[in-house]
């Protein structure tokens, strides 16, 4: 009986005394510092482990390749050899003697063109195959065979057809990235719930309205899966294709560096290719996230 009473006395005594101003300050401050601390911690949790792994790998690489007569340069030498290329990516001495920016941008332009074409054609064909049973029966076996052909196997044929490197490279991008777009779009269209089709039927949407208002939004998550696989494949294909067609482009830059025994430049180029491939993938994934925001089943 006695204990609670004393406890209450103590609690009421405190705010009345010197603690009052502190009480007024504390409710605002700790949450904010806490959020910053939490954000900092979350970032650290994501950033520190890969940094540690990278540092360790660099260390191993440095140790392995450091001794004389090693076939590959250690990271310190790579950096020393390619310092100019890293610091000035924009120089242009004519011909193919250009900064890395120009090589990468030439490759990206080819990918942009080839990939845009394959996105348009892929979604259109995917809709056709997903919507029509006869189109599926007719085209699906063809797609299943064609999609297994490696990208570079198309190159000689396209060179023969176009008689020029540029359109051939774009065609290789196109033919490489179109299959996952077609197949995923078709699956998305086939999986549109019957309920949505019923709604469209009752409302009497015409085929064009059905396409724009029901089909594309309903299949959007699938379409973006296809688009994302497609962008990855087209970036894989462009480097290989450019090695063979020559001219300005990151693929030929790598081949040229190999022919001149500039191993450090190859390593730098690989680094850029990886980063850009990653960014392209994130870009399409981010776009998909924005576009398909509302399509999750409610």
């Amino acid at each position, binding site marked *: 009986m006695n204990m609670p009473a004393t406890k209450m006395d103590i609690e009421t005594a405190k705010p009345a005394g010197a603690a009052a101003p502190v009480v007024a300050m504390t409710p605002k401050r700790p949450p904010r510092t806490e959020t910053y601390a939490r954000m900092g911690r979350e970032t650290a949790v994501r950033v520190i482990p890969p940094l540690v792994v990278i540092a360790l790998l660099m260390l191993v690489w440095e140790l392995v390749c450091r001794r004389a007569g090693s076939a590959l340069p250690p990271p310190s030498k790579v950096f020393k050899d390619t310092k100019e290329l890293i610091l000035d990516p924009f120089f242009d001495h004519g011909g193919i003697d250009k900064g890395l920016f120009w090589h990468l941008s030439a490759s990206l332009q080819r990918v942009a063109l080839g990939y845009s074409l394959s996105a348009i054609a892929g979604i259109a064909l995917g809709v056709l195959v997903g919507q029509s049973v006869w189109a599926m029966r007719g085209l699906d076996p063809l797609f299943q065979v064609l999609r297994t052909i490696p990208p570079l196997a198309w190159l000689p044929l396209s060179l023969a057809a176009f008689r020029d490197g540029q359109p051939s490279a774009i065609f290789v991008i196109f033919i490489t990235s179109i299959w996952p777009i077609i197949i995923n779009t078709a699956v998305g269209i086939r999986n549109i719930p019957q*309920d949505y089709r019923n709604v469209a039927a*009752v*409302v*009497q*949407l015409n085929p064009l309205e059905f396409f724009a208002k029901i089909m594309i939004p309903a299949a*959007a998550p699938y379409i973006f899966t296809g688009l994302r696989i497609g962008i990855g494949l087209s970036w894989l294909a462009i480097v290989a294709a450019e090695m063979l067609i020559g001219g300005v482009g990151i693929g030929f830059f790598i081949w040229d560096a190999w022919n001149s025994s500039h191993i450090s430049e190859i390593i730098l180029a690989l680094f850029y290719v990886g980063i850009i491939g990653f960014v392209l993938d994130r870009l399409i994934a981010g776009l998909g996230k924005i576009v398909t925001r*509302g*399509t*999750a089943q*409610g």
Partner: protein
Amino acid sequence: MTAYLKLDHIDKIFTRGAAATEVLKDINLTIEKGEYVSIIGHSGCGKSTLLNIIAGLTTATIGGVLLENREVNSPGPDRAVVFQNHSLLPWLTVYENVKLGVDKVFARTKTRAERDAWVMHNLNLVQMAHARDKRPSEISGGMKQRVGIARALAMEPKVLLLDEPFGALDALTRAHLQDSVMALHQKLGNTILMITHDVDEAVLLSDRIVMMTNGPSARIGEVLEVPLARPRKRLELATNTTYLKCRQRVLEFLYERHRFVEAA
């Protein structure tokens, strides 16, 4: 008296390869304008198939549906459906879901501003105007079904088809929505055809209850008039002898004469 909606000798046979299953056999039914008719039966008896035939989503093998003496065999907004699982398009807001139908039905007869006002009017009827900018995933099951009803009402259908509209809801929400639908029927005088498997719901809401025998080859077993005055009050009816008698009749039909064998 001329029938407003007439189901004329409807047979439905599903064929899969060589096997043919007769689902519905010789369904005849006439419904008057402004009438509220329920179709009740055990699951699998073909109630939903019948509703789909009326909606035009499937076609009858034999026989047909006449609406105001004209045959209807394709879907259209004059027979708007409230689907069991609401079927709202998840990428559209509540407002846009209702507007989808309104824009099509009143494309020529109403101006843009009038269509907007009409959408809001119908959302107000089901008390969902406050959620106009929400997406279906952000509102409760009962609210979704309200929006589904608003979408159907907004098309000004000649017949409103309800396909087990309250089946997926909890008991309290269901009762609340039943009251709403009753109030709407009272206010707007729609002709309503409802599929249900809930005896109380059928008796409470309907002017007539159509009881179906078990499939295959389901027929209309019996049609029961519910001579209860409107507006009906759920609580008062609980002790009303007419209500109890009607309820008893439906229960006897479903559980004695046409017991669902597979469920045993």
